[in-house]
C-alpha cells in the first residue's frame, strides 16, 4: 500500500517536472497545435462585423462587413469579406485564400468598374480598411506561420491562460514578436500584444464576449485593437454567427465576387 502512494506521489511530482524539462519552444508549438486542433471541423461560418474606427481625438467612423469563411484541410481558410458600409464602398468584396508560409492569394472586386482585380498579398502589415487591424491580424491562424515560445500560465479573468510568444515565420510581417494569452480550456485568444520591427510595443488586442457554437467552437463577440503609437483604436463587434451553412469552394471563386450579395 505505501508503495502505491509513493508511485502516485512520484507521478504527481514528475509530470510538472517533465513539463518544465520540456523545451519551452516545443511546448509553445504544442499549444498552438492543440488550439488549431480544437477549432478543426467547423467547416464554415458566416458572421456580420461592425468595425468602429476611433482616432486620437475620439472621432469615429463605422464600417459594416459581412464575413464568410470556409475551412480548408491542410491549408489556410478561404475567406470572403463583403462591404456594406460606408456607402461609397458598398458592393466591394475581398476574397482571400490564406496559406501557411506561402503568400496568400487575394482578389478585390470594385463595383464602380465592375472589375475583379488580383491584388498582391505582400501588404500583410498594411491596415485593413484604414483600421488598426493589419491584414495579417485577420487571416486564419495556421500553426506553421509562427515559431513559438511558451512563457507561463497565469489567471486571465475567469480562466487560466497559457502565455506564449510567437514569432512570424512568414515574410513581410510588420511584427518581430507577439505575446498571446489563450485560455487553457478552449484556447480562446483573450489578449495579444504586437511588437513592431523596432521591437517596441505597437498594439494590444483584447477580445471578449465569447460565445460557443455547435456546442464546441468559441468565437469572440468583440475585439478591440489599440495602437499605442498613434492613439487610434478599432472595435470589432461580431453578430449573427452561423456555422455549417453549407458554403463550398463554389462560393469562393474569384469570378463569383461579381455576384456576391
Amino acid at each position, binding site marked *: 500500500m505505501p508503495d502505491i502512494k509513493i508511485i502516485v506521489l512520484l507521478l504527481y511530482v514528475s509530470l510538472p517536472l517533465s513539463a518544465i524539462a520540456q523545451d519551452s519552444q516545443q511546448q509553445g508549438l504544442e499549444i498552438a497545435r492543440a488550439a488549431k486542433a480544437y477549432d478543426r471541423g467547423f467547416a464554415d461560418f458566416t458572421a456580420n462585423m461592425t468595425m468602429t474606427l476611433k482616432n486620437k481625438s475620439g472621432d469615429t467612423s463605422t464600417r459594416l462587413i459581412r464575413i464568410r469563411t470556409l475551412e480548408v484541410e491542410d491549408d489556410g481558410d478561404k475567406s470572403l469579406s463583403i462591404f456594406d458600409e460606408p456607402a461609397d464602398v458598398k458592393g466591394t468584396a475581398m476574397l482571400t485564400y490564406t496559406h501557411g508560409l506561402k503568400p496568400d492569394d487575394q482578389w478585390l472586386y470594385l463595383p464602380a468598374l465592375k472589375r475583379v482585380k488580383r491584388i498582391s498579398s505582400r501588404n500583410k502589415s498594411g491596415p485593413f480598411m*484604414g483600421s488598426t487591424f493589419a491584414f495579417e491580424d485577420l487571416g486564419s491562424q495556421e500553426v506553421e506561420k509562427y515559431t513559438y515560445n511558451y512563457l507561463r500560465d497565469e489567471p486571465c479573468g475567469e480562466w487560466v491562460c497559457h502565455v506564449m510568444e510567437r514569432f512570424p515565420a512568414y515574410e513581410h510581417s*510588420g511584427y518581430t514578436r507577439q505575446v498571446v494569452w489563450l485560455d487553457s480550456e478552449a484556447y480562446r485568444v483573450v489578449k495579444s500584444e504586437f511588437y513592431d520591427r523596432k521591437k517596441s510595443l505597437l498594439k494590444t488586442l483584447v477580445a471578449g464576449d465569447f460565445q460557443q457554437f455547435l456546442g464546441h467552437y468559441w468565437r469572440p463577440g468583440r475585439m478591440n485593437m489599440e495602437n499605442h503609437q498613434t492613439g487610434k483604436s478599432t472595435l470589432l463587434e461580431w453578430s449573427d454567427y452561423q456555422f455549417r451553412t453549407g458554403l463550398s469552394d463554389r462560393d469562393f471563386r474569384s469570378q463569383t465576387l461579381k455576384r456576391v450579395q
Partner: protein
Amino acid sequence: MQRPAFCIGLLLISSNGIADFSGNVAVEAISFSEEAQFEDQFDENLTLSFEPKWDGDWNEGDDLWSVELFMRADSKDSGREHADIRELLWLSIDGDNEWRVGINTMFWGVTESQHLVDVINQIDAVESIDGEDKLGQPMIHLKRYQDWGVLDFLVLPGFRERTFHAKEGRLRPPLEVDTEQVEYESSAGQQHIDYALRFSQTYNDLDLGVSWFDGTNREPLLLPGTDSSGSPVLTPFYEQMTQIGIDAQLLYQDWIWRLEIIHRKTDSNDRDAFIYGFEYTFYGVLDSSADIGAIAEYSYDNRPEGERGVFDRDLFMGARFALNDAQSSEVLAGFLVDTDNQSRTFRVEASRRIGESWKLELELQTFANIDDNDPLAAFANDDYLLVDMAYYF
C-alpha cells in the same frame, strides 16, 4: 432607355426578393483653362448625375436580380445629357453554370492605361475620356466553371451606339458627330447579333484569359458628311469585326506584370495591338501605412499613321498613392507620351471620403505639345480640372 422606372416597377413586383436600394447622387463641376479650339464650346459646366441601384434574390440566393441606372443632367451639352440602363439583370446559378439574361456591364482585361480586350460593352464616351464608363449591353451569358478554367459564352442582341458630345461640348472631334446619320456595315444594323467567347484560368501566380468576339465594332469610323442644314459634320460608321484577344497577369514578389494583345480584323484594316507593363508597389513607405505603386505601360498599334488611335506607340508612366487611411484617400497620377510625335498628356485622379456618406473626387487633365496629326489634336486646348462631390446612400 425611355421608361426605366416602368421596368423597375415590373421587376420589383415579379420578384420575391427584397429590394436592396443604394446608389449615389453627384454634382460635377468642370473648368477648362484654355480658350476653346472650336466655336460654341463652353469653358465651364456644372452637371448633376444620379445612379440608383436595386438588387435582391430568391431561391435561397440561387436566383438574383439587379437594376442599375445612370442619369446625367447637363444644360450645356445635350450629348452628355443622357440616361442609361447599366444593368437590368436576372442571374441564375445552377451548380457550375451561371446564366445572366438581360442588360449587363462587364470588364475584361488587366492593364491600367488602356483596355484592349474589353470589347463587350460600348463606351459611354461622354462620361469620361478614360473609357471606363460603359453603356449597358443586352446579353444572354452563360458562365461555366470547369476544373481547367472558366468559359464564358455570350450572345449579344442589340447594339449600343457610342455617345458623343454636342457641338457645345469640349473634348470632342473638330466637327460635331451627327448621331442621327449613323450607318452600319451589316444590313442588320443595330439588330445585328454579336457573339463572344472567353476562357480564363488562374495558374498559381499567373492569370490568363483568351477571348474571341465576332460582331459590330464598338469603335466607329467617323466619316465626313453634312447635316440637314448643309453644315459639315462627322457621321459614325460601325463596321463588323472579328477579334482575338489575350490578357495575362503575373504576380512576382512586389511586381505585377500585365499584358494584353489583340488581333482585330475589319473591312478597313487588320489591326494588331498590344500593351504591356508592370506595377511595382512599395508597401508602408517611410514607416507609414501608405503604399506607392509605380506603373509603366507601353502601347503599340500596327495600323498605318492616320488610322491609329491615341495609343499607337505610347508610353504611360504613373504612380498610385494609397494612404490606407480611414477616408480611403487615393491618388493616381500619370503621363502618356507618344514616342513618335512627343505629344504628351498628364492626368491626376484623386479621391477621398468625407464623413460617412460623401466622396470628393478631383480630376486634372492636361494636353501638351500635341502634334497636329495626333488623334488628340482636337483636344489640344481642353486642359481641365474636374471636381465631383457625390452623396452615397
